[in-house]
């Protein structure tokens, strides 16, 4: 009993650390990647005892700067809610990571420990619910600021998130029809099989349209640049105008956490999660008959690495998207949500149903 609680605690701490460290370094990755894309160098000055390491200490410098800024609340703001809003938006995004499987099971001290904080049997619903609750962070921050511009910004955010959330939910219905489970661990296990004996049975091959809808809706959910309607940091006034210092930092951090959560979800649902193509419990078995034996610990390491590299790839892809495309107009975001993604999601469900029924 005590051991179970300890295991859960250790897993929670490790998952949180993984997420927060990745989010911290994503700020660096974003600056460097955008710089490389634009023929620049990017942040490279932050150093510890003259050691620069390509500016890898920049996130820590930023964090320290944020920490030492004044924790300012405008006199006209509603204090409690103003303080609560960043926590809300941070918490509900960070908590989604508990449902994501980082790998299969490891055997430690005679126990089988799944590399997942909790294997919820309705994990998919849990994740969607938590992402929806993230809207409250935006709404409360706009409301508590008692600033009309911030309120309008938060309403834009709520409208955008609701219109894409419907598409996000619809895009996953087809997936649940193919992999008959709501548990993320089970969905990943289903993706271990082979399609036509060659292709790994990943969600992307079974649900290509579903993935497109999911990815676009998810991008809109992260409120980053092509969809940064609620915030518009460069010119329009957004919902965290009245925030400064660490509370503002928490909002910014939430954006990066959302990038990670979307990457982790895309990986888990559509790219096989921790599955490595053709890697079984005993080693690689290639479709042309060859095979390589891999020790059990090697299999576990490969699977965790596979999950991590897929997540990193999606983070890269999202940052690439963020630094390539200009912002959508407000009506275009609404059009994309209601007139393109939702119908496409419905079409996807119908097509999936037809294929499943015809089989």
């Amino acid at each position: 009993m005590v051991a179970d609680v300890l295991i859960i605690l250790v897993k929670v701490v490790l998952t949180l650390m993984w997420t927060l460290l990745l989010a911290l370094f994503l700020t660096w990755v974003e600056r460097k990647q955008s710089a490389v894309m634009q023929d620049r160098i990017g942040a490279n000055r932050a150093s510890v005892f003259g050691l620069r390491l390509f500016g890898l200490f920049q996130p820590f410098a930023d964090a320290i700067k944020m920490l030492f800024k004044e924790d300012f609340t405008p006199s006209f703001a509603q204090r409690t809610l103003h303080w609560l809003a960043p926590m809300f938006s941070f918490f509900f995004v960070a908590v989604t990571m508990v449902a994501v499987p980082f790998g299969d099971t490891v055997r430690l001290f005679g126990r089988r420990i799944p590399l997942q904080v909790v294997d919820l049997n309705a994990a998919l619903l849990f994740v969607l619910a938590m992402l929806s609750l993230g809207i409250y962070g935006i709404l409360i921050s706009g409301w508590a600021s008692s600033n009309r511009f911030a309120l309008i910004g938060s309403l834009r955010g709520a409208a955008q998130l609701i219109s894409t959330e419907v598409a996000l939910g619809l895009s996953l219905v087809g997936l649940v029809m193919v992999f008959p489970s709501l548990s993320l661990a089970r969905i990943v296990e289903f993706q271990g099989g082979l399609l036509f004996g060659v292709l790994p049975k990943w969600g992307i091959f079974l649900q290509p349209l579903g993935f497109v809808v999911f990815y676009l809706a998810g991008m809109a959910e992260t409120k980053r640049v092509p969809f940064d309607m609620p915030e518009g940091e460069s010119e329009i006034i957004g919902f965290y105008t009245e925030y400064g210092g660490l509370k503002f930092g928490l909002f910014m951090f939430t954006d990066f956490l959302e990038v990670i959560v979307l990457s982790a979800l895309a990986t888990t649902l559509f790219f096989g999660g921790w599955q490595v193509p053709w890697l079984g419990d005993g080693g690689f078995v290639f479709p042309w008959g060859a095979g390589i034996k891999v020790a059990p610990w090697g299999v576990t390491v490969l699977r965790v690495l596979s999950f991590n590299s897929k997540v990193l790839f999606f983070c890269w892809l999202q940052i690439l998207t963020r630094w390539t495309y200009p912002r959508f107009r407000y009506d275009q975001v609404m059009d994309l949500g209601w007139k393109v993604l939702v119908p496409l999601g419905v079409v996807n469900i119908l097509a999936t149903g037809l294929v499943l029924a015809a089989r």
Partner: protein
Amino acid sequence: MVNAWKVVREIARGAAITSRHFFVNMTFHTLRLFGVKTKRRGAVTIQYPEVRKELSPRHRSLHRLRPREDGRPSCVACMLCVTVCPSECISVEAAEDPDPEIQKVPARFVIDLSRCCFCGFCVEACPVDAIRMDTGEIRLAATERSALELPLDKP
């Protein structure tokens, strides 16, 4: 339908351009990191304080007074630069020179850099080519106002 296809194509083209820049630049960055000499660099950035871009020969930088052979400034305190200066940043006080050929020298020649707009009119106006703006010094920031007063009469 045609329109949607065009949108998708343009989106893909944009991503192709930015990711091409990313991968090409990353290749050059990586090659340089491992000590491979390449003709092209991964970035066009000049790392300013350590690496300087060469200034144009016409560049108007910090002023100087051209000295005579004996080291004293060659200014004759004719006040033409003071007259022509549009931002009124030059202040010259004349004094008598023992040499009858020269007659006047500046006792005080101060340029207020916080007012100077680096137009170069003083250089144009000078009849004896005494003031020049060719030192190549462009780091003129200071932490207090008094540091921005440039006394040119002191050698």
